[in-house]
């Protein structure tokens, strides 16, 4: 009674390959996969900022917006911010709402 799925999402098109037998026992797992594939399930937002050369208060408001959009349970990680971008964030106290990390190896 095996039933397996393979999900692929590309630009709003969710493709699910169904393999095997879909009955009352396997149906709940497909429902879960449909929910997962179609609902927001963001667990973490990582912003790579090494190449962000400038950020005004309008950019700061984007971070605020993301924070509100994602809610408390979701970490926002800012990676490799330049000194000025980092200072902008610290000056406004927003460093308390996100995780600031050093640059990644590329």
């Amino acid at each position, binding site marked *: 009674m095996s039933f397996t799925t393979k999900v692929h999402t590309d630009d709003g098109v969710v493709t699910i390959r169904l393999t095997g037998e879909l009955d009352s026992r396997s149906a709940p797992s497909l429902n879960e996969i449909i929910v997962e594939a179609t609902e927001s399930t963001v667990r973490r937002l990582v912003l790579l900022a090494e190449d962000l050369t*400038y950020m*005004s*208060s*309008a950019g*700061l*408001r984007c*971070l*605020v917006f993301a924070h509100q959009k994602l809610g408390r349970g979701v970490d926002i990680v800012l990676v490799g911010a330049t000194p000025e971008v980092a200072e902008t964030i610290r000056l*406004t106290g927003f460093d*308390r709402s996100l995780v600031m990390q050093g640059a990644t190896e590329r």
Partner: protein
Amino acid sequence: MAGHHRLTLRGGEAGAGRRLADLVAALAGTGGLDARRSYWLRLAVDEITTNIGQHGYRGQGGLVEIEGAVEPDRVWVRITDEAPPFDPHSHDPGPRLADGVAHDGEGGLGLYLALNGLDRLDHTYVDGRNVNTLVMERHVGEVQDTDGGTHGGDDRAGGGG
């Protein structure tokens, strides 16, 4: 006057940000401001100009004149508009920041950043115009560098002379 630049904008003009950035880069280059002070001067110019377009002219457009120059002890940028009188110092987000509510989505951080980054911001309202003068002092090292005449020159310089 050395390194005098002028730029006239109508609010909401596309590409104004680039031209403002170039104007500041040219002044900072001539004035020998370091990268950090150059950055904050540009940010202050951006924030105040953006506010004039958004709040002063309420997105309807209006005259904005930007001029700037390098003097022996400082770099200044003057922003003039014909919108209703508004003194940037009248806006103090300090209490909200202290309460940790800076990120409540209400904005109001642009002027805070601008005032923080500048050495001085003067506002006057004369002849129906807001005149904001943004000042960055040239530090000793920067002044010397500039006297050499080459350091920090930025050939992307835009705006009139």
